[in-house]
């Protein structure tokens, strides 16, 4: 019990003192995960919207795959990216393995299916409502898709936040492709895993508190956004 209390004490001291090492780790975590979410948005939003709007053979299979990929185990994703990026792999020449870039790629792979699948659902619902009106206005398909994405913006932001939640809390993929190298690829989750095994509970718990706070903040933001959407647009 003393260890427990001491660990909490250390944790809050580190946070309150804005310990530079802790800040660096938190900063890298945010940078990697936010970049990954941005990449996932660039791929997942249009991909989900296209799946919602266009009918083509094999579309059902793609949708099932996408939904299944939402549950892709991070370690498996990490392993696949590792194989691609390792020296002998097809993308080995890029020299990305054990860099933040590799971690961004791994998290993008994890987050894109979430963004795409949630986008598909949101846009499909809107499309059912808007389709005739947009065709009556002779809106071209590409503009129609942009309209659907914009009008679904509150739900889609929620999807992006869900993706961010998955990215920031994930450990399996980034530890494999990043290698948890001090000051280079060490993020909150990998540090917690490492410091816990070393018995350095203060730093681990401090990071844990920050992660939990982020999780609460993300969920509060999701709820706030859907309320704003519901109140201002009935959506």
């Amino acid at each position, binding site marked *: 019990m003393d260890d427990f209390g001491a660990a909490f004490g250390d944790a809050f001291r580190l946070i309150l003192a804005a310990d530079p090492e802790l800040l660096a780790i938190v900063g890298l975590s945010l940078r990697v995960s936010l970049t990954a979410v941005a990449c996932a948005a660039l791929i997942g939003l249009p991909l989900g919207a296209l799946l919602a709007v266009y009918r083509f053979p094999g579309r059902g299979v793609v949708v099932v795959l996408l939904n299944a990929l939402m549950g892709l185990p991070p370690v498996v994703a990490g392993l696949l990216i590792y194989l691609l990026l390792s020296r002998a792999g097809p993308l080995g020449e890029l020299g990305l393995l054990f860099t933040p870039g590799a971690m961004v790629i791994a998290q993008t792979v994890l987050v894109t299916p979430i963004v795409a699948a949630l986008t598909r659902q949101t846009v499909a619902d809107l499309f059912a*409502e*808007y389709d*005739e*009106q947009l*065709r*009556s*206005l*002779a*809106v071209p398909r590409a*503009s129609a898709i942009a*309209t659907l994405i914009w*009008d*679904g913006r509150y739900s889609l932001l929620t999807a992006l936040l869900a993706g961010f939640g998955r990215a920031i809390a994930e450990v399996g993929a980034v530890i494999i492709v990043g290698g948890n190298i001090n000051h280079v690829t060490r993020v909150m989750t990998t540090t917690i895993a490492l410091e816990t095994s070393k018995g350095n509970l203060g730093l681990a718990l401090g990071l844990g508190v920050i992660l939990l706070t982020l999780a609460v903040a993300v969920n509060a933001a999701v709820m706030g956004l859907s309320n704003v*959407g519901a*109140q*201002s*647009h*009935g*959506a």
Partner: protein
Amino acid sequence: MAPSAAAGSAPVPEIAAPRRAATAPPILPLAVRGLGYSADGASLVSDLNLDIADTRVHVLVGPNGAGKSLTLRLLHGLLAPTAGTIRWNGAPPDRRVRLRQAMVFQKPVLLRRSVLANLTYALRAHGVPRRERHQRARAVLDAAGLSAVAGRAARVLSGGEQQRLAVARAWAVHPEVLFLDEPTANLDPAATRMVEDMIAAIRDQGTAIVLATHDMGQARRLGEEVLFLHRGRLRERSDAAAFFAGPQSPAGRAYLAGRLLA
């Protein structure tokens, strides 16, 4: 051409009549030949022949399931017919033809944006230059009595305001033909009156109106020509006065007397 019933109380907006490029011929007359639409083996519209050459208010009446909504969608090009042809001055109802028409649906489809943005969106889709959009949108909002809510989110308006906005949006693009599918089915009498006034004003500016309704009062108030549909077929076509004085077809008589259910 008889003046429309509601024109007296219609708002008098500063809205230009439908603007046509000097070179573009009008999209009327409409010529429909042998039009049919079937789905899942059921024939929903069959052998429909129709010519519309004038810009009057043509009301499409008939019991539920007669094919009124379907006919509007076919004429507007939202659905492809399974038989027959539709020609707007020789052209099929493609995107170019639709750009010179507008349609208002029974349940207004409003974008999740402000009232004003709903209008400027439609104007942009119709290729109206940016500097002109705002001015035109404001003029139509005035006419629709919606100026006070221009900045509000469209989807939190009352049902009547939402439908007025939908009609205003159709008005703003200066259509040569305006389709309305039961535009007041969900509205109370006061809101219905306001929408009818707008329709009359649009008609007075030279737009041909094709209005589907099962509200016989509305058909009498607005209609100048009646197209009576029954079981997917055009059973009767007459001047409104003649139809309401005494339909020629037995089905028309039964419908007007309230004895025709489907």
